[in-house]
């Protein structure tokens, strides 16, 4: 079987397209690269969606935490503390246990039956956990940035007579984002790394549709050799990370475009915020 054929058969296997049975003999490098690469689609799916949703929720959380009203501040503080203070590993486990407790038949709301069993599937359940998790981490970053906005910027806004929404949307928020961006880049990278935990210990793989690490484990289980599949996963992640750094660097440049070139903060990779 040629390599192109393998790619056609297994390239989208993780989404349930193509051959139903996984390869079961003569494991070629091509098969391993194809299937593990196919699994990367799940890592990207989890990472991109969790980041996209998490970004908005994180903004809200950061504002709540910075609020003077205890009714907003306290819940946000607790939410952030719980999600940042416990291992993702345990969060996955508890979330799964909680989600499978939902009634099978669905929940009755105003006479309508809402189907809920899909929540215990990885594509939904794990995404929710990752979303909440990244929201908590990002909120802490945004909150820190919010507090380090130069006083002068705010005074300038006041001097222009800006108040309320205009002041927030045109001065505070852009500055916060600019200051937070390097740390937020790290958060994005580590969120992608964290997606490997989904099938590893959190959620069961359904119909052998799993992420990169799931297929790597499959090959290790069949070939009994850990020294090929796992480094392939590592390789894919290095490529993914480089892509991310490039993309976030471009955004960073745009966020800082008004500054003289020697003042621009470069994206420094420091592990401020991983799990």
């Amino acid at each position, binding site marked *: 079987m040629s390599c192109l054929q393998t790619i056609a058969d297994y390239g989208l296997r993780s989404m349930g397209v193509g051959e139903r*049975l*996984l390869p*079961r003999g003569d494991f070629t490098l091509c098969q391993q690269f194809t299937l593990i690469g196919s699994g990367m689609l799940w890592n990207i799916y989890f990472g991109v969606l969790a980041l996209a949703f998490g970004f908005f929720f994180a903004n809200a959380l950061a504002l709540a935490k910075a609020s003077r009203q205890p009714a907003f501040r306290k819940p946000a503080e607790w939410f952030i503390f719980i999600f940042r203070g416990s291992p993702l590993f345990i969060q996955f486990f508890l979330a799964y246990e909680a989600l*499978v*407790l939902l009634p*099978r038949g669905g929940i009755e709301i105003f006479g309508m039956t809402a189907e809920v*069993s899909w929540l*215990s599937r990885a594509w939904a359940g794990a995404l929710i956990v990752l979303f909440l998790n990244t929201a908590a981490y990002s909120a802490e970053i945004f909150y820190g940035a919010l507090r380090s906005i130069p006083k002068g910027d705010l005074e300038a806004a006041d001097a222009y007579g800006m108040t309320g929404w205009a002041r927030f949307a045109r001065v505070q928020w852009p500055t916060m984002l600019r200051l937070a961006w390097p740390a937020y880049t790290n958060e994005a990278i580590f969120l992608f790394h964290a997606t490997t935990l989904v099938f*590893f*210990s959190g959620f*069961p*793989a*359904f*119909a*052998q549709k799993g992420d990169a690490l799931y297929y790597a*484990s499959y090959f*290790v*289980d*069949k070939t*009994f*050799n*850990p020294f090929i599949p796992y480094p392939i996963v590592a390789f894919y992640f290095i490529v993914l990370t480089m892509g991310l750094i490039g993309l976030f660097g471009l955004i960073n440049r745009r966020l800082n475009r008004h500054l003289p070139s020697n003042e621009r903060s470069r994206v420094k990779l420091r592990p401020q915020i991983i799990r």
Partner: protein
Amino acid sequence: MKNLILTTALLALTAGSAMAQTVRMGTEGAYPPYNFINDKGEVDGFERELGDKLCEMAALTCEWVTTDWDGIIPNLQSGNYDTIIAGMNITAERAEVLAFTQNYIPPASSAYMALDAGTDVMKGVIAAQTGTVQAAHVAASGATLLEFATPDETVAAMRNGEADAVFADKDYLVPILDESAGKFAWAGTEVQIGDGVGMGLRKSDTELVEKFNAGITAMKADGSLNTLITKWFGEKAVTF
């Protein structure tokens, strides 16, 4: 000169180790009644008792080690222990990389357990432990495979309705079914997979394989193996 002394010392060492060879027995410790960690924190179960007996017969000192099922073969190959005695079914796939002893449990049935005896196990969602012969069987059967890292979780998934049925060694499921007070039932038909359960060793350890084989043969001949199987798996278990 120095070299010579070293060599003699080594010879003495090897000679010494040949007399009281320590064999490290690798097991999972999470598959009762085959092997599990008892309440004292020691490895216990059918395989513990069998392994100790075999070691005694072959005059070996045996040390028990537990390890994750996932890495159980690579760790053996890497020399972290010398045998796998963990309810491992003898399959052609595994026999390519391992040297198996003869089976010490006859080819046993794998069975489907479900909440409802009428469950269609050829369709639906079937839970099985990742990397087992049962998981491979479900994947090929046309049913939808739901995989978990430990056998425990597979049963939990069936109980909470996540999966329609769980597929595992029947001997593992029997006590769970017995204690479920009628909540669980057998579904579908039993399936024979593999050539029974045997010990897995490195291919190069031919001598050790022979020793254990001799022990198992002797235990089969005098009936003590059957006694042991009945003790741990109940009266209905298949014996030699």
